């Protein structure tokens, strides 16, 4: 006879109790995170509690879901292996959050260590204020740490997460670029069945270094993908990210970017393509701490069915951060009358010489454009697809790496075909 699977906060906490002797890293940090998680719970899971940072997104379905308690991940022979992209570049593959050496080809110019071997929780993550970070800090078993040395251009690296049904995993990643280093990281998340992928990523970009971070979240339709990323950018450094969300049932893409040195730049761009009853929440906090930094956020949503898109963007400009240039734009294309977009921009400005703006647009497909295309002989479904891709073109065109952009376009195409089916 099998015992009933414990779900929710209690399920995660009892898993921690069973695993804690074996978990790598500082046990005090684990315990503190467990305390924080016990206090905070999962946002939206308890009735009557509503946090501002989770105004539009409830993780109640995550609390209600059952996850397998096995520690050893399932590998090999799985259909998800076919989802590995055919891109000629080194790749680090994790299966259910655990590094898989057989599927990986390690990069020559990036120093790679496993969290399981050298556990470090970093300096930016805040388990006390972010419940998912508390959950991750409590249960992280593995993850990758990537470091690029001074002046090295490491080219393209793939970080792939393959997931299997029933898994709940909380990988802990760290990326460090030393002075003048460059890296393009393609992060791809795919899987089969219902599972929870709850990564925490910490990024440090040193002076004159540049990280291009392209994230393709194409998880299984029954999955939960809840990611939290912290980035710190030094003088004249660049953290340039683009996240494409097409998969999963509930998605949270939370990014905290801190511009710490003069003339730093960050782009937190994204596109969310949602259908059915998908829910994807794109939440960003950009902190302009040093003067003369630039931040750009353009997030485009294409929403079909009863899907709900959320954009919460906050720009904080410190008193010292004069000559800040901040821009935020959220655009939504609603393909169905039941789709919904919620937008909450926030500007908090303490400096007096800054340029900060934000905007939002919501619309449907343009009837004149649609008729124009059809009057030229292009069938209705194809015409709609052309207009959706045109809406996304500006965002995708900003991805410079050709093979990576092609992979994103393929994901957009796949999404469209699923909607049409």
């Amino acid at each position, binding site marked *: 006879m099998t015992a009933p699977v414990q779900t929710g906060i209690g399920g995660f906490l009892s898993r921690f109790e069973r695993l804690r002797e074996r978990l790598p890293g500082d046990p005090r940090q684990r315990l503190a995170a467990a305390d924080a998680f016990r206090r905070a719970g999962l946002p939206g899971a308890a009735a009557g509690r509503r946090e501002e940072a989770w105004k539009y997104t409830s993780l109640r379905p995550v609390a209600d879901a059952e996850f397998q308690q096995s520690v050893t991940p399932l590998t090999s022979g799985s259909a998800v292996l076919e989802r590995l992209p055919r891109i000629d570049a080194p790749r680090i593959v994790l299966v259910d959050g655990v590094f898989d050496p057989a599927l990986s080809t390690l990069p020559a110019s990036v120093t790679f260590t496993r969290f399981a071997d050298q556990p470090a929780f970093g300096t930016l993550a805040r388990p006390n204020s972010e419940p998912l970070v508390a959950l991750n800090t409590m249960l992280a078993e593995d993850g990758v740490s990537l470091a690029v040395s001074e002046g090295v251009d490491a080219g393209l690296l793939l970080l792939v997460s393959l997931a299997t049904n029933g898994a709940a995993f909380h990988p802990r990643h760290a990326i460090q670029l030393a002075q003048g280093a460059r890296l393009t990281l393609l992060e791809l998340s795919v899987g089969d069945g219902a599972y929870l992928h709850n990564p925490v990523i910490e990024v440090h970009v040193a002076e004159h270094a540049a990280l291009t971070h392209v994230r393709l979240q194409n998880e299984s339709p029954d999955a939960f993908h809840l990611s939290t990323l912290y980035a710190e950018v030094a003088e004249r450094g660049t953290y340039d990210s683009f996240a494409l969300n097409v998969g999963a049932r509930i998605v949270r893409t939370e990014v905290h970017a801190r511009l710490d040195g003069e003339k730093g730049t960050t782009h937190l761009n994204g596109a969310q393509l949602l259908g059915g009853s998908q829910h994807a929440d794109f939440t960003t906090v950009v902190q302009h701490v040093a003067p003369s930094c630039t931040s750009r956020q353009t997030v485009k949503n294409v929403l079909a069915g009863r899907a709900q898109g959320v954009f919460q963007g906050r720009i904080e400009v410190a008193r010292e951060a004069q000559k800040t240039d901040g821009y935020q734009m959220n655009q939504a294309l609603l393909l169905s009358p039941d789709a919904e977009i919620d937008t909450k921009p926030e500007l908090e400005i303490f400096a007096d010489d800054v340029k900060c703006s934000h905007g939002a647009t919501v619309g449907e497909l343009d*009837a*004149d*454009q649609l*008729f*124009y*295309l*059809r*009057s*030229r*002989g*292009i*069938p*209705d479904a*194809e*015409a709609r697809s*052309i*207009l959706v*891709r*045109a*809406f*996304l*073109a*500006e965002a995708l065109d900003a991805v410079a790496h050709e093979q990576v952009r092609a992979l994103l376009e393929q994901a957009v195409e796949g999404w469209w075909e699923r909607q049409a089916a």
Partner: protein
Amino acid sequence: MLEIRGLSAAIDDKPILQGIDLTVPQGEVHAIMGPNGSGKSTLAYVLSGRDDYAVTGGTATFNGHDLLAMEPEERAAAGVFLAFQYPVELPGVGNASFLRTALNAQRRSRGESELDAVQFLKLARAETKRLAMPDDMLRRNVNVGFSGGEKKRNEVLQMAILRPKLAILDETDSGLDIDALKIVARGVNELRGPEFSALVITHYQRLLDHIVPDRVHVLAGGRIIRSGGPELAHELEAKGYAEMVAEAA
């Protein structure tokens, strides 16, 4: 052959076309002239399938096809082409890829083989050259940042590439200078032949000096009030619409 019988149409319950009878035999070019608000553009939209107009009566067939029962893309594949009075801008859609998609969609629906990118570009470049248009027209986004004249020329380029059997030109001359007007007229005249018919909708007689029609029809109050040869356009120019409408009443 285009045959329109008793065609009536309304927008938001307001009747605009009130029983149009018109036949354009294969190989002929007919002009439709009329004052503002007479229903000229409505006729163009109804024939090409824009769905914000409600057809309230009558029929329209083209080479035996019941046009009014067809989707806009089906009409296009059957050979109907509308040159828009106000061509639509498509940001994020390249002109060449738009044209190739359109051409291949039409070819596919007719059971013809599709053109690959190289074959298409060869054809498109030849047509741009023939119409004295700059090559970069193909590289730009559809009509985005085009001047009024460039937009109209782009309509003619599309027509040249898609090779329709029935072209409906909705005030293609409006906003054109004389050089652009000549280019547009040449585009139409080069397509003329036994397989090509056109309905040239215009406010002014000027365009008809360059595209000489076989027949001219005057549309007023949603009805054709007079039909005649090319000389009718000159009569209209001399008298003005008001007098002709009064005579017909």
